[in-house]
């Protein structure tokens, strides 16, 4: 019997160990909880028996009961807790009762749909209930598509395909008329800009379903969230009931928090390799997650060089199912001892469970963290998770405050239904799919104002057959689910399109000279041509990354709401932002290797913001203590921004921030804003939870062991003022006075 505690104790004697272990948290095991009261038909029982399942876990039974009662259900239990079985039983019971009912299963990623199709076909075999299921996406040949539209009982697709096919609804008449269930798996992926677009695709779908008198039930699965109900309701426009108490078992888990900075002469990546070799040498099968494909390859290469006798592979996005099966088989047989991967492996893809998981670099959200960690622990066996944060305020804070990681209901998944670019684009799509009788196109959103605008622009015309689309481009080709409208930049390699991104993102990530990350691969941007709207890229394996430096200006255009606190007032509203990009830094393992100037016109956009207006006395109080007020304010702004993604799931780049010691009306201000034209709802959520954000931020800065500020607390990578002035102690006093 392999013992994890022994493994950890022995590790401390290795020569790469220099007190990096900050803490080891033992997460107790959990016994399974079954529901023995739920009844099933003979065929369903046959299916369960075939899967060797005797009883359902309590959360599975609870969800199935809600679904039987006709309630929209969102399930937020952990990875590998058997959520798929819920969808499958739900549709199976329907198919058994009513011939001809249909199910639409929507997945955010292709690989997921493939795996689920296998599961459905297995269900057909085991249950003896006949039905047809198939994947309908961009790769499906057109005769197969026709066959599926006319014959399939269950269609598996993705939001991109749905966006394209809705206008062909007359061909889907039979399917839509009989649609009973819409399943959205991994729904937490539908957040931010993508999620806001998907929310409208679903409303367009619902509008068409209503036309065919169809009113299906929605079943969602998501990672654990702080706001599952709010999120599900915003995503679909339906009322939901939530299933969150998991009955699935888990073995003891050890979470080992590793502070790589204790050994400054070795990078966090080299230390990842050290741990990987150590655990695999001790016969613990290990999977290491890194943040880019390049790093995955490097770590594998270093490990292979050092230890020729241990088989360690790397894994990346886009592997064929046959290769995955092969890897899975070799893992099961113990041939592969270690695997290094990007988060391509994260999304529900089944490669079995491992003994040790190394999370090298925070994957961006707590839910992704646990999705990666969820790969550990086979059959109730104890397992071990290493977490090695990079040098970054939020990442370092997590190993000092692991209760945040352990409180899986910390994050909010955010969707905006108010971004007018997104709204107007989907409104045009929807009207091109069906004429509109009412000015409110989507039942739960007021669209009359935007409808008037598009009428004014000649894109929609009121006729005796309703409002009809009169534009001269196919709107579904203009609206991209990955963008918030506005100006886009095409990233091209030798003229071939890699990705289309918003201009705001291009300024940050695809400026000339930058290293652009896509699917774990690194691309060098040779030139960003703003006139042509093209960023010319080439594939280049590099081991550095780039960060732009910028200054900002913010102007308040409209206050939507405000609330008064002890010594400040908090506002939510609209602002116009101007960002000035001065240059960028290239960094390798945390160190700046070069700096380059940038010549770019300033970037303007209108967006949403949450801002703090401080009472004037605060300044005097701070200065009385011989602290630098401007530096304190600046440091507080950096720290608040750094922790925001913990509350509102997003990329650090999705938010901008700015502080003014003296704003237009003479008072000190701190702005946090959505870094996209129109906003994506982040600021509004931060407005709601601002007090919690403030409390955590104070803790973060206070707990940092540095003397006068560092990248782990109040320094920002992209500060256009080079983190100057910064007063860490002042920031703590300032924020404590705010509380």
């Amino acid at each position, binding site marked *: 019997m392999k013992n994890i505690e022994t493994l950890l104790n022995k590790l401390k004697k290795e020569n790469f160990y220099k007190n990096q272990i900050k803490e080891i948290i033992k997460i107790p095991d959990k016994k399974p909880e079954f529901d023995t009261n739920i009844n099933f038909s003979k065929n369903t029982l046959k299916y369960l028996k075939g899967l060797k399942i005797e009883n359902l876990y309590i959360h599975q039974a609870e969800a199935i009961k809600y679904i039987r009662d006709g309630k929209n259900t969102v399930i937020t239990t952990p990875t590998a807790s058997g959520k798929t079985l819920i969808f499958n039983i739900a549709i199976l019971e329907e198919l058994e009762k009513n011939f001809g009912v249909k199910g639409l299963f929507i997945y955010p990623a292709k690989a997921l749909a493939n795996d689920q199709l296998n599961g459905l076909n297995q269900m057909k075999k085991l249950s003896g209930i006949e039905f047809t299921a198939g994947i309908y996406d961009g790769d499906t040949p057109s005769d197969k598509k026709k066959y599926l539209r006319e014959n399939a009982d269950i269609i598996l697709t993705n939001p991109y395909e749905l966006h394209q096919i809705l206008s062909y609804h007359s061909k889907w008449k039979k399917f839509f008329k009989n649609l009973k269930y819409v399943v959205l798996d991994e729904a937490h992926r539908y957040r931010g800009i993508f999620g806001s677009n998907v929310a409208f695709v679903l409303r367009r779908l619902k509008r068409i379903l209503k036309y065919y008198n169809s009113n299906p039930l929605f079943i969602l699965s998501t990672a654990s969230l702080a706001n599952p109900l709010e999120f599900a309701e915003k995503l679909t426009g339906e009322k939901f009931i939530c299933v969150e108490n998991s009955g699935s078992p888990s073995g003891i888990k050890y979470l080992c928090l590793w502070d790589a900075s204790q050994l400054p002469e070795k990078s966090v990546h080299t230390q990842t390799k050290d741990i990987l070799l150590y655990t695999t040498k001790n016969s613990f099968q290990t999977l290491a997650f890194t943040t880019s494909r390049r790093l995955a390859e490097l770590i594998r290469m270093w490990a292979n060089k050092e230890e020729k006798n241990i088989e360690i592979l790397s894994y990346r996005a886009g592997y064929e199912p046959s290769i995955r099966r092969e890897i899975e088989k070799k893992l099961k047989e113990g041939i592969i001892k270690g695997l290094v991967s990007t988060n391509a492996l994260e999304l529900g893809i089944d490669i079995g469970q491992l003994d040790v998981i190394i999370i090298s670099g925070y994957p961006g959200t707590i839910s992704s963290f646990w999705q990666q960690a969820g790969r550990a622990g086979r059959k109730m066996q104890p397992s071990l998770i290493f977490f090695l944060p990079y040098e970054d305020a939020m990442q370092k804070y997590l190993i000092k405050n692991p209760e945040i990681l352990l409180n899986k209901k910390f994050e909010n998944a955010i969707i905006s239904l108010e971004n007018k670019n997104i709204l107007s684009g989907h409104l045009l799509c929807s009207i091109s799919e069906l004429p509109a009788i009412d000015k409110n196109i989507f039942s739960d959103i007021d669209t009359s104002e935007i409808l008037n605008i598009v009428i004014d622009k*000649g894109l929609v015309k009121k006729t005796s057959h309703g409002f009809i689309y009169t534009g001269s481009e196919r709107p579904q080709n203009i609206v991209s689910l990955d963008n918030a409208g506005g100006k886009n930049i095409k990233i091209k390699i030798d003229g071939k399109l890699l990705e289309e991104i918003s201009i705001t993102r291009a300024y940050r990530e695809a400026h000339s000279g930058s290293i652009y990350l896509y699917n774990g691969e690194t691309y060098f941007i040779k030139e960003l041509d703003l006139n042509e709207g093209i960023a010319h890229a080439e594939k280049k394996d590099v081991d550095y990354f780039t960060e732009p430096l910028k200054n900002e200006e913010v102007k308040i255009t409209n206050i939507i709401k405000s609330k008064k606190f002890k010594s400040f007032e908090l506002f939510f509203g609209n602002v116009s932002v101007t960002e000035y990009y001065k240059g960028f830094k290239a960094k390798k393992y945390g160190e700046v290797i070069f700096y380059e100037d940038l010549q770019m016109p300033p970037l303007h956009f209108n967006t949403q913001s949450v801002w703090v207006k401080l009472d004037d006395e605060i300044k005097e109080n701070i200065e009385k203590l011989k602290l630098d007020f401007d530096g304190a304010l600046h440091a507080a702004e950096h720290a608040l921004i750094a922790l925001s993604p913990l509350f509102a799931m997003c990329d650090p780049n999705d938010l901008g921030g700015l502080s003014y010691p003296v704003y237009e009306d003479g008072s000190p201000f701190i702005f946090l804003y959505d870094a996209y034209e129109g906003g994506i709802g982040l600021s509004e959520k931060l407005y709601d939870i601002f007090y919690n954000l403030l409390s955590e931020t104070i803790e973060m800065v206070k707990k940092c062991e540095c003397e006068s500020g560092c990248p782990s607390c109040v320094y920002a990578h992209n500060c256009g003022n080079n983190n100057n002035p910064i007063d860490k102690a002042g920031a703590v006093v300032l924020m404590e006075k705010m509380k």
Partner: protein
Amino acid sequence: MDFDSDFLKKFHNPENKKNHTEQNKKNIDTDKNKMLINEFNIDLGEHLLHPLPDKDYFISCYKKCFELIYGVREKKAKKFNEQNIKSLEDLSNDIKYSGFVKNLFKILDDGFHEIKKIFGRRFSSSHKMAFLLLSFFKKEDLLFLDIETMTLFPETQIITIGCGFFQNNNFKTIHLTALNEEGEYEILNEFKKLLETKKAFVTFNGKSFDVPFIDMRMSYYNIENNLNIYHNFDLLFFTKKAFKGLQKSFTLKEIDKNILKKYRKNDISGDDVFYYYNKYKITKNMNFLKPIINHNKEDILSIALLLHKLISVWCKN
């Protein structure tokens, strides 16, 4: 929020950007006419006299078509010919094939729909036999169809539906043009009426473009249709087969030049249709519609002449 409506410009074709809104508003509400109907009687000369293939010819070809037998392809069919097996009847006592042959004769007796079904299973849509299905129709049953649209995508509107047909030994075309946004609904309904006396379409690429486009637009307005029951003789497939190697690009214009030796006078290109329509919408000057209608007429004429050409190539017994 200040809405940066720049984004909305993307939904207009670049041609359409200038002065669109103001001009539009002034005129549109004063429109009384929603639809323009143009009719032309066309002298097809000698081509009119050319009959459609007759039933006997079809039956004789059917009986010689071994490829209708399951499992028989071109190579095998040649072998039969070499063995002096000349028709399906010669196989009616063959142990291996008699069942198939019996069934094929039954299908022939069952008529058009069964024959069409087996052709669909056995042949590509460019097969000569599929063309010979014409023998089931009278000239008067055929509707030559071609449409002009805003874009290639059926989420946008139809500008003109053009139809051609034989009537009392004349060839006639009718062009239904939407004069405003209300007009598309009207032309679709008018087209539906025209369809009532017809039984089959003759198109050029109409299987993938014109007919599904009309179908989508009718569905959009909830206009019931039975377009799918009309047989569609899509000449694109037959032309590619019949004139294989003759030319690379199979557009109607190229076919005019190289196959039909028909020269279009003052014709605009299909890409210009949107430009002229937009000019019309801005100015409400009907003269801008003339090039569109003329273009549409030329296309229908070409389809009619192409049908004649294919008959002369494929039906000389």
